[in-house]
């Protein structure tokens, strides 16, 4: 019975399947895709809109670069400030006071730090006054990342390779090397009652850092390899203290950083240098500084009495940040036009579907390709691909063109490595692509173009605007830029956030709370949610 009933059914089922197969073959995804692409490319306004998006992305950055002149002092003339470049190719700050001796071949340096103190600029009525002399106008106080310790450095040239073990104002003992690397050691600030012993040993290119509380039991903090460290390096004591910055809010748009150089003083004893090199005397050198320095420095020096060294320094040994106290801008500023391009892309993306509703074309479209999810996917692919190509072309043109213009006006551009540049270019294209898909999905859900365009622009641009105009507290800004689609602009951030550098991280300064691809993922999540909503609504509603 069951077999008999099943047998006659089988051919019928098969034929129905074939019929079902035949229809999708005509409406295969490739065909729907091709239909959507034909629609897009034959509407002149949309092609013009995408061209405008690309042009705006390039030209706004160009106008901004053309209008930005960096002068030096009151003379106003072009002043070419250049940061030293570290072993990794990044711009670095390398300003400190260095008391050193040559270290030939393998060996080690040990010292005990009994005190770390410092001086900050006087704050009066929100304005910082920095004295003219090294000590004038400064009050006692210590920056959290003031540093004093021992260091092995390839040479006294700024930007040369190094490894150091150091005590800090608020972050305990650290081992740092080659400007960007930072390893935490034991916590606490040194004092006469609880000094810190520090040691660095060199074996070939490998340097190991140790710390100890009493000088008997040593804790290894880390081992680092410094490629190409010369046979005779410089080893010794150093002190440095980063510039003090404070953000002040003023008027409608206001985050101007004010601040000034600070000083740190470390007191060392039990200093010993073990090496095969012939005995030589200690020598003190101010690394960096001077009137043309990119980083503000208040001076420095050292004093020796018996076995006790008092070293005072100013500056920093760290990656240089474009929104820090130094001068210059990063390549992301040449892409400031992305916001303008984004709005044009959003307008076209929303119209790509709302225009069909307005003219009733949507009914013909849905009759021709009844699988509505497939239609939405095809539209997303077409608009995303067009926006991606537009963004890619714009970013490839904008970065070299606008950087060259900014340089010609005396602006210093922070160097970035090739991988970062590729990430910024591809990321800008991907940002426009996903924003276009988001706009299309919102357009499909809302159907009316003015409301859809406004929704997408407000959702993307307004949180960013509120952040850069510093309306909220900085914690509020951080929240906003972690959750809002504008988090994706972190993909354009050229200089990473380094936890070992005190820095006011603000969107206006080109600094975002999330890592580049994480921020981009936030926008993707918004676009995915909008697409999901659009798919549900498109399936449920009559067109």
């Amino acid at each position: 019975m069951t077999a008999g009933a099943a047998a006659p059914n089988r051919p019928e089922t098969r034929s129905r399947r074939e019929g079902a197969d035949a229809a999708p073959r005509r409406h295969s995804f490739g065909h729907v895709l091709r239909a959507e692409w034909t629609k897009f490319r034959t509407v002149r306004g949309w092609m013009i809109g995408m061209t405008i998006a690309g042009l705006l992305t390039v030209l706004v950055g160009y106008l901004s670069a053309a209008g930005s002149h960096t002068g030096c002092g009151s003379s106003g003339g072009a002043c070419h400030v250049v940061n030293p470049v570290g072993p990794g190719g990044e711009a670095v700050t390398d300003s400190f006071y260095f008391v050193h001796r040559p270290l030939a071949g393998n060996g080690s340096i040990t010292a005990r730090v009994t005190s770390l103190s410092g001086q900050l600029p006087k704050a009066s009525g929100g304005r910082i006054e920095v004295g003219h002399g090294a000590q004038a106008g400064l009050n006692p106080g210590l920056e959290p990342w003031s540093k004093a310790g021992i260091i092995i450095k390839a040479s006294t040239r700024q930007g040369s390779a190094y490894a150091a073990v150091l005590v800090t104002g608020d972050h305990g003992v650290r081992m740092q090397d080659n400007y960007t690397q930072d390893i935490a050691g034991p916590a606490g600030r040194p004092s006469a009652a609880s000094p810190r012993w520090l040691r660095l040993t060199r074996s070939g290119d490998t340097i190991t850092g140790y710390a100890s509380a009493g000088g008997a039991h040593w804790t290894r903090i880390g081992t680092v390899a410094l490629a190409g460290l010369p046979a005779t390096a410089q080893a010794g004591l150093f002190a440095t203290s980063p510039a003090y910055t404070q953000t002040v809010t003023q008027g409608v748009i206001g985050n101007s950083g004010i601040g000034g150089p600070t000083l740190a003083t470390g007191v060392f004893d039990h200093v010993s240098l073990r090496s095969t090199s012939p005995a030589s005397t200690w020598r003190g050198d101010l690394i960096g500084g001077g009137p043309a320095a990119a980083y503000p420095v208040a001076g420095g020096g050292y004093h020796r009495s018996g076995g006790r060294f008092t070293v005072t320094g100013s500056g920093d040994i760290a990656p240089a940040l474009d929104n820090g106290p130094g001068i210059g801008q990063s390549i992301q500023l040449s892409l400031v036009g992305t916001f303008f391009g984004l709005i044009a892309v959003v307008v076209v993306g929303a119209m790509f579907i709302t225009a069909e509703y307005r003219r009733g074309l949507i009914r013909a479209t849905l009759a021709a390709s009844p699988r509505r999810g497939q239609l939405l996917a095809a539209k997303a692919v077409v608009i995303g691909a067009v926006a991606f190509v537009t963004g890619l072309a714009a970013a490839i043109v904008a970065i070299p063109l606008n950087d060259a213009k900014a340089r010609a006006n005396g602006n210093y551009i922070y160097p970035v490595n090739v991988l970062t540049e590729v990430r910024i270019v591809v990321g800008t294209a991907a940002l426009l692509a996903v924003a276009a898909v988001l706009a299309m999905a919102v357009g499909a859900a809302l159907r009316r173009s003015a409301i859809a365009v406004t929704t997408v622009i407000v959702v993307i641009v307004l949180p960013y605007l509120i952040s850069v105009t510093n309306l909220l507290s900085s914690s509020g800004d951080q929240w906003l830029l972690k959750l809002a689609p504008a988090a994706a602009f972190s993909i354009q951030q050229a200089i990473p956030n380094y936890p070992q550098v005190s820095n006011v991280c603000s969107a206006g300064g080109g600094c975002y709370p999330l890592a580049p691809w994480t921020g981009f993922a936030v926008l993707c999540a918004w676009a995915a949610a909008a697409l999901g909503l659009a798919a549900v609504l498109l399936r449920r509603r009559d067109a």
Partner: protein
Amino acid sequence: MSQALQVPPVGRQQVPPAAGPGPRDVLHAEWTKLRTAPGMIGLLLAAIGLTVALGAAAAAAARCPAVGCGPDPARISFTGVELGQAVVAIVAVLVVSGEYSTGMIRTTLAAMPRRSAVLAAKAAVVAGLVLAAGTIAVLGSLLAGRLILPGHGFTPAHGFPPLSLGDGPVLRAAAGSVLYLALIALLGLGAATAVRDSAAAIGLVLGLLYLLPIVAALVSDKDLQRHLLQAAPMTAGLEIQVTTGLRDLPLSPWAGLGVLAAWAAGALVAGGLLLRFRDA
């Protein structure tokens, strides 16, 4: 019955047919269209709700830990205007581009051939509605700020008395915010008349409003930044909301609102000329 037939000729004698509909008729026609267009009431309610909601959220996120803290309580309370203006711009854009998308504009212009009068009537109706909605939104924001801010450190002890319209600068900020919204509506109306397509018009208006301040915040050149802040319709216009640190403003509050008024006037003139010389 004969009397009833005689009444219209009397009316026609008073308003000769050659003169077409008078200003009041145009105004009444535009008011009827706006009142009955689907979604307009909803949009105005959304403008009010979003303005108050964002203002309350900004007030809840603001902190004043000590005397001399940076934030400006009036500006925080009226932050919602930055969002509300987008909805106001939609209303203004739809009043014009809605007619273009349905072809209604041809009927409108056939009935009322004086095109500048049509645009003026639309401007009057939209501005009046936005002034009314803006007043409700701004008063609501002020109330929210007055209730929320003292709990976050904006107390008399820190130098901030409760927000009150009796305070000259706060009154100026509140009244100015209402005027700001009305001027944004006129800017949107002018832009939509010039561009005709609603998506392109709203993109143009919001780009002009939101993007210039972002560029101003990002450029490193201080002179360029100041010029951008003075020229951008949103930053210049919103200076009317500032009640503290007036010394550091790129423009005085009323001059800033004047810059926005100039943008709105320019958009209306451009839209009016295009409307006059172009086929509908």
